[in-house]
């Protein structure tokens, strides 16, 4: 029995000895890459102000939603939102919606989508723009979309052929009329710099709508309430 007690004592000594030899320095454990505790604590004092505004639930994300190529559920929604809202604002049919994937900074993960999440998704202070393009420019535009392997578009269907061009292009389920004028909804950023789509530069007409693209997305997702990973094969 004594033998056992000595063994136990020995083990305890070893264990306590270990802790003496290697003291846990709480100060050291907070060193970089841990956050600075004072700055972190100060930041937390302001967080309730942000949360009070930005935690507002907008929708529920049911699946992981990404910008995939040639099409993705999130890209489709992003372009649909522009086209549908532009039609509402202009009170006329808008044929197409398009936006560069680079305008968006996050993808959606399942759970509650908050106002803050939508602002992270689209952090730029952009506004809605509607461009008027002739049919030949629309074909050029969709070829540019095909050339980058697909991008968020709304109102068009086509497949990308082996030469990275748009084949079997239909706009609103019709073949493109080269001489017809088409309305294309986008953001001022994409309209100004092209954002991979130079066919958008020098349109026949441009309407700047006084509506923030961030607010447009908040309204769109709020209207959907539940967001699913749905694709319709608009770009194949």
């Amino acid at each position, binding site marked *: 029995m004594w033998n056992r007690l000595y063994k136990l004592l020995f083990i305890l000594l070893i264990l306590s000895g270990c802790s003496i030899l290697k003291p846990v320095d709480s100060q050291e454990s907070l060193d*970089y*890459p*841990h*956050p*600075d505790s004072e*700055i*972190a604590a100060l930041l937390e004092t302001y967080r309730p102000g*942000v949360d009070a505004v930005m935690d507002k639930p907008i929708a529920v994300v049911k699946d992981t939603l990404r*910008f995939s190529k040639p099409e993705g559920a999130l890209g489709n929604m992003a372009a649909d939102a522009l086209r549908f809202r532009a039609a509402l604002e202009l009170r006329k049919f808008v044929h197409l919606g398009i936006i560069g994937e680079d305008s968006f900074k996050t993808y*959606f993960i399942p759970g509650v989508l908050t106002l803050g999440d939508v602002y992270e998704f689209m952090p730029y202070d952009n506004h809605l723009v509607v461009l008027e393009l002739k049919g030949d420019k629309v074909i050029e535009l969709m070829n540019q979309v095909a050339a980058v392997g697909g991008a968020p578009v709304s109102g068009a269907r086509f497949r990308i052929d082996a030469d990275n061009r748009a084949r079997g292009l239909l706009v609103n389920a019709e073949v493109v009329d080269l001489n017809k004028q088409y309305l294309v909804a986008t953001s001022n950023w994409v309209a100004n710099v092209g954002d991979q789509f130079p066919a958008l530069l020098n349109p026949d007409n441009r309407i700047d709508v006084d509506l923030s693209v961030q607010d447009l997305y908040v309204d769109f997702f709020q209207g959907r309430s539940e967001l699913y990973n749905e694709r319709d094969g608009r770009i194949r």
Partner: protein
Amino acid sequence: MTISRKEFLRRTSLLAAGSILPFRVASASSIISRADNITILYTNDTHSRLDPFPTNAKEFAGLGGIARRASLIKKIRADQKNVLLLDAGDVFHGTSWFEVYGGSVDFKLMTEMNYDAMAIGNHEFDRGPDGFAEVADQAGFPFLAANYIVRNTPMAPFIQRQIVKEFDGFRIGIFGLGIEFEGVIDRSLTGSVRAADPIRNAIQITRFLKESMRCDYIICLSHLGYHYLDSRVDDYEIAHSVDDIDLIIGGHTHTFLDAPTVIQKESGKSVYITQMGHGGVRLGRIDLNNLGVTSDYDLQARYYTIGEEE
């Protein structure tokens, strides 16, 4: 003539063996009394990214965050006696923090971290001169813009053309340059502030810093942009057109430069241009070494990705 990155690395390779030295030196005895070494830490275009990038970010997921940046800066300050901490502008805009607090939290935290100065970026006008003044009041550091005319505007009390920081006799002059307004900032947001020619103002101010203020080293905090293909004034042009600048810490174009670009001037002088992307993903570091031994000091450059293990 631009020196290639390889050439730059070769030039700085003299200290290659000691490149991690500053991170090892911790004992008080290693800190010498005269300014032999100066460490310049810098950020640009942090864009209110006070928290790390969210886990569902398409880029930089989980990286950055001002509290981790503060922790790294504190660690470096513990090792280095002479530290300058600078920002090249666009602290405003980009996250919910700015939407709610308009930049005041950023400025308060930057003050706690002992930032020495900051340039004025185009986004600092996002809430107009009044909106800037309202939160600039929270900043315990000066805003530098040598080419912005702010007289009789709400920005006037906060903007300086230049500052001089002295480290045991070694004098560093720091001035700021802001971008032109046309095509960048909505006219309704600039109020009565005017943007003057950055090159002309940089020439004037460097002469003043060199001759009147007897500066040994001159830093330009620029929010002009790294390098444009068209005729817009950029950091390249400032480096070529202005004598006596030693280092340009740039911003605006969100350029991630792994190593500074070195512009070799006809006079034989080298001008270094650096920029650390955006969102506080990186903290830049430039060490000026052997300042007390020889007039031909050594320069070492590196960066830290905030949130990644070294």
